[in-house]
């Protein structure tokens, strides 16, 4: 335990002091969580997905607790990119936090417009492209469930983003072969991959005997989906060993985060665990540092993909 682990993390060209980030949609734009831990100490704040215009989101109920998880159907409520830049991004910059801006659009054009609008804003470490969100153009399908649609969005965002700003495609686990989608995104210009978004689920209220959520279906998150997320990271690391991965899905402890690093993630996002413990990102940073030290790792980088090593028998 006496060795000090180098906790720096690298996500494509973005150098971060910690491999622990917040997860989009679980940290607003950092301000509320700054009351519980120093948001400048973690890797970065990943903001709630921002769209071109203000968006009300869905009616309530928007949430249902499930075993070791929850369903949500928020519907991308947000102030729109202009107010986001004026208030949230400005606060993050002045606070000195590194920021990964998550963007979401209903069309390829909206993604392009968002990338273009953010292009000259300072203080953006990376763009996370939320292609696992509702898609009007594809009639309720998500971009990330179709390799061609996913590629079109990433291509458009890449074209409108400075080469100095890495873009990460956020993938959905609700696909037959996640490596296929990952490959399409990388071919289209993604510098890295974020995985996983929530998986679609549903709860029926047995008192009302109707769906528990106003949106009927919702995204399942929390420790319940962690094995699925670790599997996705593992498969994509195996298929695309050189592509940086931001791993997420049910991380609640330092050992959970370690699983993702070992499976091949270069850094991790902590999402739903924040609802249980708003100081979770910083706690997990410290637990991960201790877990790495316990295992003799000298740096985060040394642990990335370590579970893929060949067993050497003498």
């Amino acid at each position, binding site marked *: 335990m006496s060795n000090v682990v180098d906790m720096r993390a690298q996500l494509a060209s973005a150098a971060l002091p910690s491999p622990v980030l917040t997860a989009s*949609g*679980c*940290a*607003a734009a950092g301000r*509320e*969580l700054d*009351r*519980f831990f120093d948001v400048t100490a973690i890797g970065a704040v990943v903001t*709630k*997905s921002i769209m071109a215009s*203000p*968006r*009300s*989101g*869905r*009616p*309530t*109920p*928007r*949430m249902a*607790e499930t*075993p*070791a*998880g*929850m369903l*949500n*159907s*928020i*519907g*991308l*409520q*947000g102030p*729109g990119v202009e107010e986001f830049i004026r208030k949230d991004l400005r606060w993050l910059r002045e606070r000195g936090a590194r920021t990964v801006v998550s963007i979401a659009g209903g069309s390829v054009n909206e993604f392009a417009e968002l990338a273009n609008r953010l292009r000259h804003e300072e203080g953006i470490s990376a763009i996370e492209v939320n292609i*696992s969100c*509702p*898609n*009007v153009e594809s*009639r*309720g399908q*998500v971009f990330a469930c179709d390799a061609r649609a996913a590629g079109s969005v990433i291509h458009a965002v890449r074209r409108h983003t400075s080469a100095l700003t890495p873009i990460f495609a956020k993938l959905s686990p609700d696909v037959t072969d996640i490596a296929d989608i990952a490959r399409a995104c990388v071919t289209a210009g993604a510098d890295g991959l974020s995985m996983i*978004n*929530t998986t*679609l689920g549903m709860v029926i209220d047995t008192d009302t005997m109707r769906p528990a*959520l*106003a*949106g*009927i*279906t*919702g*995204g399942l998150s*929390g*420790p319940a989906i962690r094995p699925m997320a670790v599997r996705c990271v593992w498969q994509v690391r195996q298929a695309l060993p050189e592509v940086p991965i931001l791993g997420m899905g049910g991380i609640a402890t330092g050992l959970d985060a370690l699983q993702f690093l070992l499976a091949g993630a270069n850094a991790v996002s902590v999402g*739903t*665990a*924040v*609802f*249980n*413990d*708003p*100081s979770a990102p910083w706690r997990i940073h410290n637990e991960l540092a201790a877990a790495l030290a316990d295992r003799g790792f000298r740096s985060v980088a040394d642990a990335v993909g370590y579970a893929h090593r060949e067993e050497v028998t003498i």
Partner: protein
Amino acid sequence: MSMMGRGSKADVGPLQVRGEVLAVRRSGDYHVLVFAAPGVAELTAPGNFVAIAVGGQPTAMLLRRCFSIHHVDTAGALGGTVEIVVDAHGPGTKWLVDRVQGDALDVIAPLGRPFSLPKDPVPCVLVGGGYGSAPLFMLADRLRERGCRVDMILGAATESRLFGVVDGRRRASTLTITTDDGSLGTRGRVTDVLGGILDQHGGQVIYGCGPMGMLAGLAEVASQRGIVSQCAVEEAMACGVGVCMTCVLPVVGSDGVTRMTRSCTDGPVFFGDQVRWDEVGTVPADCLGAPVVEGGAGTR
């Protein structure tokens, strides 16, 4: 009626602390949970709430349970105590009421924007539905300290679902009770007796906490009479700290624009005329960013 700001207390908190259970006692159909929570009592104003992790570690129950603060005592030997009222209807709340003295609790408090108090010592009517009455007794104390007359109405479906009858008698100039089944007090709803109480004692502010339907009724009476109402809403929350966006309801801002507004950080107390009560649970068509067409699967 001019109302004061809500004070600066909310800007100091909230704290995330390890609490310790001191007692759990029955009160009608409810349980009162008393716990030590260092530093919380001093920061708490009437209307604030706590968010408590349930199930121990590790737990399959991820979401904190939120309760309005019933009572605080800064003089406790363990650095201040907090009381909440729990209706044990699900696995999380059942876990909570099964705690025994000495058990640890992970507590975040005080949360939310508390009740605003009137600048002048005007008569106030406090209305609680079921265990929604929990925060009203602290509020009554603050109001009486300011020289306000306090009349109280407590209503519930039946006698065992009332909370705080003894506390109310002690604090309020008059206490009126209503039950749907007539098992105690007047048979009917709180709104059936509210007009008479207002007429009799000249209430200038209505404070309410309870089910949405009751709060909507209070807000309507207030607006008919041109007086102020302050309502603490009970929306389902996942985080309680402002990041999950699940506890929203349509609220009209000072700019006249309706937004889906978080009840955890912008509430739980709202002026009655700010909330679009009839449209709670919907997104009004004129709400900022309301969808032009419905579509798509749920995602953050």
